[in-house]
């Protein structure tokens, strides 16, 4: 099977600072991939290059065999890549329902939203557990609910690849478990490939089949959660060299 997403020597320099250097990645469809690394390692930079928020200094990005580097974020979204943001973003002063509907309309604009679109929004709201907040203005929600709104809006664009940037940050243990269950559903039942950037190790270890570790802009390890947990380089990066 052809790889869904391929990163080739992806590099980003901000002036003299190299935020990401020669990052390579081959991601198969249907996978759940975790990207971890210390603060400032370049995880979000890699995300932002994939979604078009920032342009790579060098290297290429292919999605479903097509080069997508250099495209604008809205064009990349239309190709089938959805995302959530590290600092939660919603459309504040409109209802949760309209937030999600905007995702559906952005994918396919109708003067009057179609029955299918309303139906799709209802289903997503149900799936993401937002039914009781349906008509609530998004700015009045808790962080946890806002994160689910962001996820729901991304789902309404019908992505085949979903990039989730620190979705678990700020959630309680119970909320993390609920979110993990939801992500397994999104991956298992809807067949959406997931890439998560996460600091909550429990979440990454439980959810992901494969983990990439980035440090100082470079990929230093890749493997199953077990391999990563026992990788000396990774332990050094997180706990400092010579620990144990």
């Amino acid at each position, binding site marked *: 099977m052809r790889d869904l997403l391929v990163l080739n020597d992806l590099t980003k320099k901000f002036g003299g600072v190299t935020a990401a250097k020669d990052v390579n990645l081959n991601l198969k469809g249907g996978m759940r991939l975790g990207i971890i690394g210390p603060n400032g390692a370049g995880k979000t930079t890699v995300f932002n290059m994939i979604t078009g*928020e920032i342009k790579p200094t060098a290297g290429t990005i292919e999605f479903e065999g097509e080069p997508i580097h250099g495209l604008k*974020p809205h064009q990349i979204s239309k190709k089938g890549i*959805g995302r959530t943001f590290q600092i939660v973003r919603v*459309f504040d002063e409109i209802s949760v329902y*309209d937030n999600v509907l*905007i995702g559906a309309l*952005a994918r396919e*604009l109708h*003067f009057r939203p179609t029955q299918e679109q309303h139906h799709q929004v209802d289903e997503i709201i149900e799936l993401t557990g937002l039914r009781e907040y349906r008509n609530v203005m998004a700015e009045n929600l808790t962080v946890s609910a806002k994160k689910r709104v*962001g996820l729901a809006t991304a789902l309404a664009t019908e992505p085949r690849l979903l990039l989730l940037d620190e979705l678990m940050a700020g959630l309680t243990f119970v909320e993390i478990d609920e979110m993990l269950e939801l992500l397994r559903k999104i991956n298992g039942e809807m067949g959406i490939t997931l890439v998560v950037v996460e600091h909550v190790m429990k979440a990454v270890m439980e959810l992901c089949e494969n983990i990439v570790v980035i440090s100082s802009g470079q990929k230093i390890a890749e493997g199953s959660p077990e391999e990563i947990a026992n990788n000396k380089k990774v332990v050094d990066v997180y706990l400092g060299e010579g620990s144990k």
Partner: protein
Amino acid sequence: MLSSTLSANRIALAIIFILLLVIPHIASSYIVYVVILAILFSMLTASYDLLTGYAGPLSFCHAAFYGLGAYTSALLTLKTGMSFWLALPISGMSVFLFAVVIGYPALKLRGHYFAVTTFFFGHFMYLVFLNTRELTGGPLGLGEIQPPESIFGIDFSGMTANYYLILIFGILMVGFLYALVNSGFGRLIVSIRENEDLAEAVGVNTAFFKVLAFSISAGLAGITGSLFAHFFRLLHPSTFSWMTSEMIVVMALVGGAGTLVGPIIGAGVVTFILEVMRFAPELRFVIWAILLIAILVIEPRGLAGIYARIRGGK
């Protein structure tokens, strides 16, 4: 609660509508003249609200598009002998296309940068109206503009026929805008106002939709300008100066931007307050400024927000 609010709204709307229909038959021509001005300003604020209230970018050049439509329509009829009925849609369309051309680069700027750019663009257009004397007559004004040619046997040289003509266009324009802001397009431009980066990330071509909202808004101001030109029959650059643009911004804010009905009410209220205060020409803008600050301090959502609070909303 909701249904009583709805019916109260309907009753209020019905009363206003009936009043608008009978005003030329019960009021003095001065009052009719003021109401015409209020309707024209309502059309300007409603079209302005599409851009600034719904899509978000704060613009200070709406009067420039109003003036561009007025001069285009007047000059087409004066220089080429074109009928008003053809000049009206052509001036609306020309202003729309003009706004596409300047909106595309200007809307790459965000927030204050865009606002400042529109401010200077508005002033630039005023200087163009003022200094292209061969065309616009400059400070002497452009006169001898003819009223709309009669159609269906209706003669438009008098005040009453013009009143109904402008009222009909006002209703059509507000109806069009109402449909637009409640459509899929309306929802997408609101998403830009709420969070441009998020809108872009979920697949909204924000550059395209901002330019489109800007240009539709401008084109409608152009149509309003054409109606004004053939009603007033004399154009002067000062009508389209930054003061008018600022007035439109103020009317929209007082009424409550992003509600469509708010800016329309704001236009009506402000027009009448300024007329009533004519007895104190030096003081009226001072009183007016205090009133404006008071409203915005009490309720930043303007009159629409105050109404929502009284009706028991939040």
